[in-house]
């Protein structure tokens, strides 16, 4: 591998130039790794905050207000979808909280706490009291509790859809991280909700489900719609309900790709120009090597090897730098609630490394071609 050994020697004998090119690649790939991971994690965080603790698929009756009969066939059909991770039948009704002259609408969701937790993680988000849902228990949100001074153990008076009052006991206060959810959402016992709604034991308002890959919800919903067990039922999924969020995520991805693309273009131009200068600087050496019998292809490979060495070392440093930036970002934001954790994706990091090496190699094509076409007589006559 004479070309490789000459390439390595050329690089070693021009250390500053070599370090500058590798640093250029490192900065480009570092930015790529950091920015790409940042945007991906930001999107994951946004998606998680928006729909992570809510049903991503909802099966309801075609007619509004009518119950769904949760048969074993329906349960089986939903659970047979490989993407579906959780299936929770719920009973929901609207109520009005009344305390003296104060009124506030509440959306009450009834179910078993263990099942509700698999979607809403109420127990994990409890900030006061105990996570229990006995027949007359109610779990309320933090903002609701603060607004109306409700504490665990307090009586909560609700006006039911029928207009009748119901007295429930606040057992715990949860925080969903959203003022809207914390103000207007509450959880009650499933049987209590069934009584309010006049439902039998297998009747529910909706069957909520979560999926492993949130972006697969459309496909899963389509599959469920075509399942005969769900005939006469309506399947909705989060993506069709959150077009604005999806559009924002898409725009964010597009801007991120644009930034990453132009960073890579800048890196490629930097490498190409520096290698072109290097090729001119080494014209005499290449010419004499060719006079001694080095073949065109062999000489052209010198700059390809140089690019490969610089690409691999630069991209490796870039990946490490990007990961270090992510670690720094995570460290600085460890106590902050406004920052989100950045999780580097192995696939993306590997892809960034490969892209860095490829960009370097592609950037060397012009100097390589120039070198392979060099005629030794140009150097010999030039003196």
């Amino acid at each position: 591998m004479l070309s490789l050994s000459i390439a390595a020697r050329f690089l070693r004998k021009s250390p500053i130039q070599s370090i500058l090119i590798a640093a250029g690649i490192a900065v480009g790939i570092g930015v790529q790794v950091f920015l790409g991971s940042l945007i991906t994690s930001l999107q994951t965080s946004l998606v998680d905050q928006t729909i992570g603790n809510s049903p991503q698929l909802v099966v309801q009756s075609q007619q509004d207000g009518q119950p769904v009969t949760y048969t074993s066939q329906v349960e089986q059909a939903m659970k047979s979808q490989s993407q579906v991770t959780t299936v929770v039948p719920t009973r929901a009704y609207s109520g009005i909280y009344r305390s003296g002259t104060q009124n506030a609408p509440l959306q009450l969701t009834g179910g078993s706490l263990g099942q509700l937790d698999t979607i809403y993680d109420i127990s994990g988000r409890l900030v006061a009291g105990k996570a229990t849902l006995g027949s007359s228990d109610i779990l309320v949100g933090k903002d609701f509790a603060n607004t109306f001074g409700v504490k665990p153990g307090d009586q909560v008076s609700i006006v039911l859809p029928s207009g009748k009052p119901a007295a429930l006991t606040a057992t715990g206060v949860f925080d969903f991280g959203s003022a809207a959810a914390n103000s207007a959402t509450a959880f009650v016992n499933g049987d209590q909700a069934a009584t309010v709604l006049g439902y039998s034991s297998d009747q529910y308002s909706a069957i909520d489900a979560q999926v492993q890959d949130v972006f697969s919800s459309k496909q899963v919903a389509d599959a469920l719609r075509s399942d005969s067990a769900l005939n006469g039922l309506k399947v909705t999924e989060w993506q069709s309900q959150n077009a604005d969020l999806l559009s924002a995520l898409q725009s964010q991805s597009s801007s991120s790709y644009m930034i990453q693309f132009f960073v890579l273009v800048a890196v490629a131009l930097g490498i190409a120009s520096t290698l072109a200068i290097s090729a001119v600087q080494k014209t005499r050496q290449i010419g004499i090597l060719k006079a001694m019998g080095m073949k065109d292809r062999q000489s052209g490979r010198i700059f390809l090897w140089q690019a490969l060495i610089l690409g691999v070392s630069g991209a490796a440093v870039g990946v490490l730098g990007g990961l270090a930036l992510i670690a720094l970002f995570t460290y600085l934001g460890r106590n902050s609630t406004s920052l989100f954790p950045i999780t580097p994706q192995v696939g993306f990091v590997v892809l960034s490394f490969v892209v860095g090496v490829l960009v370097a190699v592609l950037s060397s094509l012009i100097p390589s071609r120039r070198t392979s076409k060099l005629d030794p007589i140009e150097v010999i006559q030039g003196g």
Partner: protein
Amino acid sequence: MAETLVGAENIGKTYGTAVKTVALHEVSFTLDAGEFASVIGQSGSGKSTLLNLVGLLDTPTTGRIVLGGHDTTAATRKQRSALRNDFIGFVFQFHYLLPEFTVLENVLMPGRIGGVAQAELVGRAEENLALLGLEGLEKKNANDLSGGQKQRVAIARALMNRPALVLADEPTGNLDTVNTKMVYELFRTINEELGTAFVVVTHDRSVAQQADRILEISDGALLQDVRNAYAAPRAREADLPAPA
């Protein structure tokens, strides 16, 4: 009868397309294996052009060159590179050593270009360096040598593949008198000990007189091709006319 190493038939070289400059008119000569010839002429007479054509560094506009039995007229760039590597060693006015490499690595280069592993070549490279009085300098950087030493390293490099022919273009143009004498003595020693043929281009008549044969070029034409009687006793038997 010695084997013919170089056969040049009516070779000519014209530069330019719109404005044509004829650098060499149809020149013909042959060079036998082991012969020591010099090419003499004024600056711009075409002697370096002739050397570059014979060394397959340039292609003739007319005529053909046969090197070691290979007609190079239709040879590809790859084939010409291989022939240069196999048959020819070059020594130029400028040493053209690779400053990134040590003395030993520079000497090894033609062998490595030829695809031979470095380990197999080191012995011969060291022999060459010893022959040229460069022992102990193997690990020095090429840039750390004197002018004379650099040119001797260039000669050692030219001999690496045991070429049948060494082409030297003003090899002592940048050297002082002592080093000039040393270089020519080395050329003669190598010529005699290894049987390597030499074609040395020079504009210095006293230098040319040390060759067995003198080709004089003037205005791109071969003015005379004579056996040098003054180079005796080293002069070779050749069927050439005596100097005019």
